[in-house]
């Protein structure tokens, strides 16, 4: 009979105590797993989201904020850059370096989903997740010459209930602020799910976006001095960064109002453009929040590396590699939060391990007689010691296995919440490689906590324990 079986029988004999100690181990391991899995998935999803764009160009400011807003539709909306800079980027000295450059404008939402002004090239020319083409579950891409057409991401469509043919009125600002409603756009296409943050956004023709305020002349005061004095150059009071911008850039509308309004973070609104123009808005009146750039794959690597700095300097903007920013963020903030959570979860596991030790140790006095019987059958002291260690390992690994299931179950329960909040879809059965470390980790822990009771078992006096009544 194997020693494993002897250890297992001893666990069975104290089924309740064993189950409880294993359960506490399961809880600890479940937490570890949840932390690892959720972090792993967030990490992966962020990195995946950054695929497809080589550079993000925007007004000078926080590079991470720019990337989060432009790629993930999260956080504050950064200040705008001038259309001239965009024009220079696409048609000027960098034209040969750039394969695709898609302008986007932020600042509106519909039912909490960001409304993004862009060009049809966003879906016609960009790819996601390393080479996949955008597809439409319903309808088609919006048309360049139809300023009031819109396309909606899969999640946004499901949550808002918007279908092809429906119209909606974007609201100025972010979800929490009640801005004024704009003229309606018509949905002409619903994107197939991509697993990227774009599932949670609504895309409108950038021309329509520029026109947005023009048809509500009775707009309240918070609408922009620039709307009245169309081209009056004036640097922005509330945004120090914009002071660095070209003095000729038309003033940005709402940022002052948006900032003073309420909480930081989500709140910041800065409309790309709020000007009265009906058709063919002159370029010098347009602003852009960011440009999504795919570089020409043929440019030599040194040039590729030098480009962000060159662009930033020449155009007085910032050009950042999203992958790098995300990497910094994940390693910095997210990594540290994970570390703290992981340490806490590991401490729970260690406490559960001590529970195993106490449980086995307490059972030792009841088991002296049985140990003596097994010794009298010819088992060595070391054999008895091994049996007790195996018992500890079985409890730890059994609890650990249950914890693995529990942990993935937990992420399964949490995944819809995470998906709703961040657009990151968590597959609860996606095992992370780092979970494998649990196996040797638990064995080491079990051996350490099993050592004390094992030594007690090792020292059992056979002759005396045999005479003592069972």
């Amino acid at each position: 009979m194997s020693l494993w079986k002897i250890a297992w029988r001893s666990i069975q004999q104290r089924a309740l105590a064993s189950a409880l100690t294993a359960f506490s181990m399961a809880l600890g391991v479940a937490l570890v797993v949840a932390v690892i899995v959720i972090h792993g998935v967030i990490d992966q999803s962020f990195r995946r989201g950054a695929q497809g764009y080589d550079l993000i160009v925007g007004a000078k400011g926080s590079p991470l904020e720019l990337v989060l807003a432009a790629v993930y539709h999260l956080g504050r909306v950064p200040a705008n850059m001038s259309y001239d800079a965009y024009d220079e980027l696409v048609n000027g000295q960098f034209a040969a370096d750039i394969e695709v450059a898609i302008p986007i404008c932020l600042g509106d939402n519909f039912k909490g989903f960001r409304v993004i002004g862009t060009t049809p090239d966003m879906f016609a020319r960009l790819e996601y997740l390393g080479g996949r083409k955008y597809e439409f579950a319903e309808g088609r891409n919006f048309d360049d010459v139809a300023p009031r057409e819109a396309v909606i991401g899969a999640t946004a469509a499901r949550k808002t209930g918007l279908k092809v043919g429906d119209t909606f009125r974007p609201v100025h600002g972010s979800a929490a602020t009640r801005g004024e409603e704009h003229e309606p756009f018509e949905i002409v296409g619903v994107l197939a799910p991509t697993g990227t943050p774009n599932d949670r956004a609504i895309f409108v023709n950038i021309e329509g976006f520029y026109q947005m305020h023009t048809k509500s002349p009775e707009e309240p005061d918070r609408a922009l001095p620039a709307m009245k004095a169309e081209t009056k150059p004036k640097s922005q009071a509330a945004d120090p960064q914009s002071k660095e911008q070209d003095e000729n850039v038309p003033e940005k509308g709402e940022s002052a109002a948006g900032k003073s309004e309420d909480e930081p973070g989500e709140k910041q609104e800065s409309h790309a453009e709020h000007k009265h123009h009906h058709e063919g808005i002159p370029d010098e009146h347009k602003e852009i929040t960011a440009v999504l750039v795919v570089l020409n794959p043929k440019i030599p690597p040194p040039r590729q590396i030098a480009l962000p700095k060159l662009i930033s300097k020449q155009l007085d903007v910032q050009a950042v590699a999203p992958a790098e920013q995300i990497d910094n963020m994940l390693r910095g903030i997210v990594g540290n939060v994970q570390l703290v959570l992981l340490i806490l979860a590991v401490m729970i596991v260690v406490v559960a391990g001590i529970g195993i030790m106490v449980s086995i140790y307490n059972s030792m006095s009841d088991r002296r007689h049985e140990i003596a019987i097994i010794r009298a059958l010819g088992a060595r002291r070391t054999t008895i010691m091994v049996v007790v260690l195996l018992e500890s390992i079985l409890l730890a690994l059994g609890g650990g296995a249950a914890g693995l299931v529990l942990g993935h179950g937990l992420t399964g329960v949490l995944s819809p919440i995470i998906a709703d909040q961040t657009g990151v879809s968590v597959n609860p059965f996606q095992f992370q490689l780092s979970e494998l470390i649990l196996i040797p980790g638990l064995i080491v822990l079990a051996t350490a906590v099993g050592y004390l009771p094992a030594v007690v078992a090792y020292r059992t006096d056979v002759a005396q324990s045999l005479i003592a009544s069972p």
Partner: protein
Amino acid sequence: MLLQLREVKKSFFQPDGSELPILDIPEFDVDAGDQVVLVGRSGCGKTTLLHIIAGISRPTSGRVKIDGWDIALMDESEVDQFRAERIGYVYQTFNLLPSFTALENVLLGMTFGRERPDRERAKALLKRVGLEHRLTHKPPMLSVGEQQRVAVARALANRPQLILADEPTANVDVGNQQQIIDLLRETCREENVALILVTHAPEVAEQFDRVEYLEKINLVRGGR
């Protein structure tokens, strides 16, 4: 000669430091396949003697030779191995492991020897003691007589040369007593195993050809 005891002394040391002599046996021999009954009043050291023969406790001095091997000279793990392979033990309180089935208790008797446990032999032994229909029962589900029969099968499991039975029938009723004694004697004869049986029951003792009174072979008189 299977078992040879020479000048075996055993004393316990009391908490106050004084020595308490229990055994002083100049000579005690048992031949292979022999059946010996050992009698003596309570506390005279019968269990202590069996423990010494089994290597469960060490004599204070003297030689304990089994099949030519002096177990008093072996280190502890060698004695354990030796016991696993050559000695079977039957106790007054059966000492079955309650969480193991009857079959597993017998298999456990084979686990610590050199050879791999032989399931078929374990089953055959249980059949021999009349328990083929109780293989998967755990001891608490067995009657007292059945439990002791499992213990007999377990003692025989590793094909020992010697079985030590310490009052094996003290806890069973008179009807079962004879059954157990017969079973022990017959199976030992069948397998050519020597038997040393301790008993307080005269009707058991008188069935044996060789009866040893511990008080006679032991020079420590009056016990404690």
